[in-house]
């Protein structure tokens, strides 16, 4: 199948997605929104794995499997992350990342 | 149990006894007893040493013992003494015991105070008996750490600042020192495939000149900071001013001598060629700060500051004499360390006593103390005279030896700074007498001064003990001179 779509086109698109996600990750003032930005990043990475497998290295299915695993891990991550956020919310009434600065201690 | 380890064990046992005792009144008694035993033991050690020498033992160090305690780096608990170390040990024990007496009436946390004081003393004793660079360094650090607590907790004035400054500067110095010591270690001769920290071993096969030139400044400045080498002396006025009396005594009396002793035993002895090569620079620093310290003292009004600057001046004289690198000067330098140790300890003790009564250390606010506290005032006059080098007191014997030794060098630089050093005694006289005139003589300025306690027995004990030593050395200096000289001789022979 020769669709004419270049691998570099896909990679550029995912790179843009990735960095938009990064932007969201560092600027959002809400933990859930941060989480969503994180999903963007993960998603972009997963697309890269799969597409490179599909278009460039065609001997086996490693990229696809990685994509699958990423999706699975992302699910776990979101589940646990959200639970943590909920707990935080219960404890502190806030999910502003700027107020969660316990890390510096 | 060998003879020297007892010197460490006695203070440690005293500390343990202090920790387990519960009665408030008994702390000082325990400390005093422990340190008195230590003093007596030091005297015994001196006699033992003399008798061994009398018997014809001419080895450089006696009572040696070497136990390895860290195999991979060949670090040893290597101990031994020569005449210089014996003299320093005696000085330390005398200053410590009088320090304990001076702190007889300490109010806050007496137990912790005496524990810290004795830990400090332990470090000093360990330092003077060590022959292994690393062990020596370890004891040095052991002495510096309690100093921080002692000043920070029991001090006066801006004590946190002073304690911090003192500790940080000394720690910075010990960082330099560590570099130097490791350098010495890395270039030390291989014994059975291992480098060594042993001073004796390194001294007998010193490293190449180029390496010496690199490591000498580290060690010299590292110890020099402790010996108040210009421009690293500024911890001393602030530190002394804030420290409690006994700590000032120990610090100026003993701890600062560790700097001189270290310069002498490590920097100059182990790296003599570099010392010859670079002595001109340090000579200018030390020689200049003799006058500098004296003039600095001239303008101070706080008794402790005056004394601290005077210490800067006198210790610069020690370093100056050490840099002359000959037997007479070195002996004079050690004599000066001992003499200054006693004198300055007595000074600080008296300042503490005066401060307790007048609640000020400002010279300009006092006057006529001779009338109300004649004992303390007369003691102050005497020790002042000792400090300005009055014959019959230890200061004169030491300074004269240094001057005679230094004058045998005919180089222009040495000449000039020797002359400056001699003239510094004039300035010394001025600042000492200024205090005597303002504080002790003249009319009584404040009404409350009329009602002052006379000196108490423990204060008298401390002061008389120290003054007796000062006078003893001043009137009969020859035995001490001989004791030191005999130990300096082989060192000088080795490095030339």
């Amino acid at each position: 199948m020769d669709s004419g779509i270049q691998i570099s086109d896909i990679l550029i698109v995912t790179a843009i997605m990735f960095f938009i996600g990064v932007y969201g990750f560092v600027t959002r003032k809400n933990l859930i929104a941060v989480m969503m930005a994180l999903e963007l990043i993960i998603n972009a990475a997963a697309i890269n794995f799969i597409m490179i497998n599909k278009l460039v290295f065609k001997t086996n299915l490693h990229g696809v499997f990685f994509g699958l695993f990423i999706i699975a891990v992302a699910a776990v991550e979101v589940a646990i992350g959200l639970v943590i956020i909920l707990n935080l919310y219960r404890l502190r009434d806030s999910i502003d990342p700027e107020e969660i600065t316990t890390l510096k201690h | 149990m060998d003879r020297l380890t007892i010197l460490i064990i006695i203070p440690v046992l005293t500390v343990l006894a202090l920790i387990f005792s519960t009665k408030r009144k008994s702390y000082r008694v325990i400390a005093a007893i422990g340190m008195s035993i230590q003093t007596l033991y030091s005297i015994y050690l001196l006699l033992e040493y003399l008798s061994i020498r009398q018997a014809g033992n001419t080895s450089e160090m006696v009572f040696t013992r070497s136990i390895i305690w860290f195999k991979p780096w060949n670090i040893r608990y290597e101990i031994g003494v020569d005449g210089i170390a014996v003299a320093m040990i005696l000085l330390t024990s005398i200053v410590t015991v009088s320090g304990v007496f001076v702190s007889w009436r300490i109010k806050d946390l007496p137990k912790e105070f005496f524990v810290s004081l004795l830990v400090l003393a332990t470090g000093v004793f360990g330092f003077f008996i060590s022959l292994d660079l690393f062990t020596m360094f370890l004891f040095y650090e052991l002495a510096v750490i309690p100093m921080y607590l002692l000043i920070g907790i029991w001090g006066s004035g801006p004590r946190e600042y002073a304690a911090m400054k003192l500790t940080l500067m000394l720690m910075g110095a010990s960082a330099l020192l560590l570099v130097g010591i490791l350098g010495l270690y890395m270039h030390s001769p291989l014994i059975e495939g291992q480098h060594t920290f042993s001073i004796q071993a390194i001294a007998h096969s010193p490293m190449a000149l180029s390496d010496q030139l690199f490591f000498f400044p580290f060690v010299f400045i590292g110890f020099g900071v402790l010996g108040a080498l210009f421009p690293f002396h500024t911890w001393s006025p602030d530190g002394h001013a804030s420290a409690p009396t006994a700590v000032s005594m120990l610090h100026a009396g003993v701890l600062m001598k560790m700097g001189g002793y270290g310069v002498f035993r490590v920097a100059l002895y182990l790296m003599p060629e570099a010392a010859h090569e670079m002595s001109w620079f340090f000579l200018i620093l030390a020689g200049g700060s003799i006058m500098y310290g004296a003039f600095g003292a001239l303008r101070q009004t706080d008794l402790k500051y005056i004394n601290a600057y005077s210490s800067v001046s006198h210790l610069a004289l020690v370093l100056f004499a050490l840099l002359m690198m000959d037997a007479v000067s070195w002996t004079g330098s050690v004599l000066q360390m001992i003499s200054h140790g006693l004198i300055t300890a007595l000074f600080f003790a008296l300042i503490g006593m005066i401060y307790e009564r007048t609640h000020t250390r400002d010279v300009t606010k006092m006057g006529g103390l001779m009338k109300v506290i004649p004992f303390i005032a007369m003691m102050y006059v005497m020790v002042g005279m000792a400090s300005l080098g009055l014959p019959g007191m230890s200061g004169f014997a030491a300074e004269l030896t240094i001057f005679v030794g230094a004058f045998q060098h005919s180089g222009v630089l040495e000449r000039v700074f020797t002359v400056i050093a001699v003239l510094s005694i004039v300035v010394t006289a001025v600042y000492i007498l200024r205090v005597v005139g303002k504080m002790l003589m003249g009319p009584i300025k404040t009404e409350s001064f009329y009602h002052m306690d006379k000196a108490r027995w423990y204060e008298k004990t401390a002061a008389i003990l120290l003054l007796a030593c000062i006078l003893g050395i001043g009137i009969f200096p020859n035995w001490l001179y001989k004791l030191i000289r005999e130990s300096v001789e082989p060192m000088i022979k080795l490095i030339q």
Partner: protein
Amino acid sequence: MTERIIFYILAFIMIVLSLMSVTTTKIVRAAIYLLGVLMGTAGLFFLFNLNFLGAIQLTVYAGGIMVLIVIAILLTHNVGFGLPMPDRRHMLLGWFAAAVGITVAFLEFTRHIFVIGTENLDDRVAKIGADMLHYGEGGFVLPFEVISILLLTGIIAAIVIAKGGIPHKRPTPPSSKQS
């Protein structure tokens, strides 16, 4: 050619939606935009005949994860909650960093010459399934097991964390205290 056009359209939609997702001030809208991105991704997979992956993407991501997120939003916010805008300095810095990153990536991807494999990729679902459970060469049974365990522990952890919270509130530590 059509595929290319479709790809570009998809790509455009994905980029725009992700952009809107990180900039919108309404959190629910952000979620919806994200959903769009994820579905676009699934579309991409379908475009390349990766039907199984597309399906997984739709079910797990667009379905499961998004539902979780929406529920979390519902639990923590009232609907219509306005997200605070990031302050200007952060925004500029963020954009700048993102732009630099995109530029670097762009230069890199256009410069690099990809060596395209010539053989055909066997990407049948059956093959994926077989490889997944295969323990010989090219088999992924071990990572599969690991992921399974991870999922299990994740679920248990989620339950424990969600349930074990202590009801009483800790006073917030004073934020002014240094170190």
